[in-house]
């Protein structure tokens, strides 16, 4: 009969409509899913550490400052950057141009800049302080600028440079941090949910050994040289007299200068920075602990601070500012005139009474000494012999 045909046709038509709807749904969900698999971080932090002291390690400070400069230029504010410089090169007495640190010879680019804020300087850059910053175990009196206040939606960039070897990094020529300690610190950070994703870059000799022991998720690491290779420095400046930068960071800086906040460059481009022809050493990277595909990770996810802005059309009513109340404490102040304290009250100083020295009972040392003498005496002779001696 006609009805089943109609039914069939209507059901087929319904099916067609349904298929049409599901495909539309699929497209919508695919777009949503794609957005979901992009990074879901809400803030960016950077910890930049230079571990070398002395004038001839100028290049390590220049390395760290050029990464600092790029990171600031791409939007991460000073409050979210922990900068640790183990020595002062800019105002060093051997610097012919004070308040400058150059990265290119002929003094083309001053990476020290005009508004640098260094959080840990000089002797404060130690292994202990570095690990405390990472894990957040700082004494309560530490100011905010010296803390890494990251949460579980933070993407953190960690950059280390200095002298290193197979499995260790030297701090200030007097102590060292091993790759096991570093891996454990990152695991502590993971367990305390102090990062969403972490990018670790190291520019030292045999740098790849430092990321060998990582075992926490969401870590990506880059190093300037493999185990057994040395990272070399780039070019000396004859006016300043030292090597200005290391090769890997020099080419990294050149790569980052082309990045702007809206750039779509991803991590695969970063892995190609400084091939063996330019760097002499072989840069390495490690992405097995990272959940996303490096090709979908933007450079600005770590180096910049690109915020997701949601535009809303609703208005929010802020409360009317309150009427100022009376002064604290009721009765405001007396009418007596105040006066400045005497800066150098000579008469008062001269006529001070000397402090009375209180008698203190003899302290533990004297009591202990006399007890020892008496003890030895009585042990030698015994109490019962005392009357024979005296």
């Amino acid at each position, binding site marked *: 009969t006609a009805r089943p045909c109609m039914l069939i046709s209507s059901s087929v038509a319904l099916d067609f409509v349904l298929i049409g709807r599901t495909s539309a749904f699929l497209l919508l969900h695919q777009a949503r899913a794609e957005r979901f698999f992009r990074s879901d971080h809400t803030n960016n932090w950077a910890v930049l550490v230079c571990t070398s002291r002395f004038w001839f390690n100028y290049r390590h400070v220049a390395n760290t400052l050029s990464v600092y400069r790029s990171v600031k230029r791409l939007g991460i504010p000073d409050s979210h950057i922990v900068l640790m410089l183990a020595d002062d090169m800019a105002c060093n007495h051997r610097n012919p141009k004070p308040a400058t640190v150059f990265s290119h010879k002929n003094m083309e680019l001053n990476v020290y*800049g005009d508004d640098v804020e260094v959080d840990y300087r000089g002797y404060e850059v130690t292994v202990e302080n570095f690990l405390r910053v990472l894990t957040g175990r700082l004494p309560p009196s530490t100011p905010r600028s010296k803390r890494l206040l990251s949460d579980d939606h933070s993407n953190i960039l960690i950059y280390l440079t200095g002298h290193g070897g197979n499995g260790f990094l030297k701090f200030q020529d007097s102590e060292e941090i091993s790759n096991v300690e570093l891996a454990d610190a990152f695991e502590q950070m993971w367990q305390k949910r102090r990062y969403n994703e972490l990018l670790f870059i190291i520019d030292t000799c045999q740098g790849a050994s430092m990321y060998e022991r990582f075992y926490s998720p969401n870590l990506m690491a880059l190093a300037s040289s493999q185990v057994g290779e040395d990272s070399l420095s780039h070019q000396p400046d004859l006016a300043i007299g030292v090597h200005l930068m290391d090769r890997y960071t020099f080419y990294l800086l050149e790569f980052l200068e082309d990045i702007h906040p809206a750039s779509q460059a991803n991590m695969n481009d970063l892995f190609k920075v400084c091939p063996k022809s330019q760097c002499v050493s072989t840069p390495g990277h490690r992405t097995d602990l990272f959940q996303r595909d490096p090709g979908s990770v933007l450079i600005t996810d770590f180096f910049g601070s690109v915020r997701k802005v949601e535009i809303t059309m609703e208005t929010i009513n802020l409360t009317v500012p309150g009427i100022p*109340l009376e002064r604290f404490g009721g009765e*405001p102040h007396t*009418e007596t005139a105040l006066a400045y304290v005497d*800066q150098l009250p000579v008469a008062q100083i001269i006529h001070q009474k000397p402090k009375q020295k209180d008698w203190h009972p003899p302290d533990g040392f004297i009591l202990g000494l006399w007890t020892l003498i008496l003890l030895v005496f009585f042990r030698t002779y015994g109490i019962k012999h005392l009357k024979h*001696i005296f």
Partner: protein
Amino acid sequence: MPTLTLASARSPFRDEFAEELAIRPLHSGDIHASFQFRTVWGVDLLQATDPRFLRYAILPREIVCTENLTPWKKLLPCGSKAGLAVLLKSEKLFHSSYFSQAVHIRPVCQGMHCTVPSWEMRQTLNVVFDLYTSGQGKREWSMFKIKIYVDVTDSPQGELFELSPPTPLLSQAVVLGDRRTYSVYDLTDPGTFGKVRSLNLLVRWKADNGDMLRPLLHGERYVAGFGLQTGEIHTLIYNNHPYRAFPVLLLETVPWYLRLYIHTLTVTSKNRENKPSYIHYQPSKDRLRPHLLEMLVQLPPNSVTEVTVQFERALLKWTEYPPDPNHGFYVGSSVLSALVPSLVAMDTNITQEHPLFSSFFLCKEESSYFMRVYTEPLLVNLPTPDFSMPYNVICLTCTVVAVGYGSFYNLLTRTFQVEEPSQSLAKRLANVIRRWRGVPQL
């Protein structure tokens, strides 16, 4: 919960901000520029400033560079974006002979009657530009682009240097007991600029010589002696006033690893011993507290007073040495506080419009002003072990060899002999007492 208000109904005093630049060309061709920024808050959080709660802290090895200037500039209301702070370019500021920046926060009087205090934050920056090192060989200095004061006392008729553009505004102020004349450029007055919308201040030197007036009080400090065992700290205090003597409070904080011998403390002026009117000394405790020495010394007129104290250098524990121990250890500067008699009567009327730099130290008397001078920090070497790897290897190897070889040698050559035991000291002493008593001995 009652809250504090910024503007009370009683006094309409509001927060205010003032900035000023004072330029003083020196005889040597250098320029001394002093920036002063003053923020006053009309808040009366009066807490009595009791001098007994004074705390003093010093970081002798603190390198001052742009990284110190950046947070300092952020304290200004407009940062470095507007006002005189735009002139603070770090490359020029740190390439200078002398640089000093400070923040002072204190309660000040508000109004004539001084019944209500307000809080003042004063930021000062002093630079001495050395023209020859900054690459400008010409004896000429210009600054372009508030109030700017240029000190013209030394050249009233234009003998020493010539100032352009000329300004009819002259003001006199007493600074540090000396009456000086200033040409004032008021940047808030549009007449200063004329047709061009910028001010180009040019100072051109004419004469080449001339000596400066010596300051009435200044100090020097140095370490004497040789070797890594002992040494002597000498502090020299100069009083250049021709006929007046005045007291000086000397505060010295010496770290614990320089063990001072206070019995060797001597104070001499004009080759005669000068007994201080007051001495306070708090000894150090190892690893806990430094030495604190405070003395009130009367300085005779036109003299040099020398304070010397001997010390011994301590050997620190291995981990207490900094990463670069052969650089040396810094000892903080000593502080000289004095009421210096001024050569000129001062005006203590606080409500009159004064340039900021002359109202820095507020004092009650008219005939003297308060001054605080810091001496140089010292750099001393402590006996430092050799931390280098070859030294450690040699020590360990020699120890192993000594222990191994020594045991073997003993085994081969040592022989034992029987010996009568001698009496112990206690027994001998007891025998002496018994002999004296006439009792049989042990």
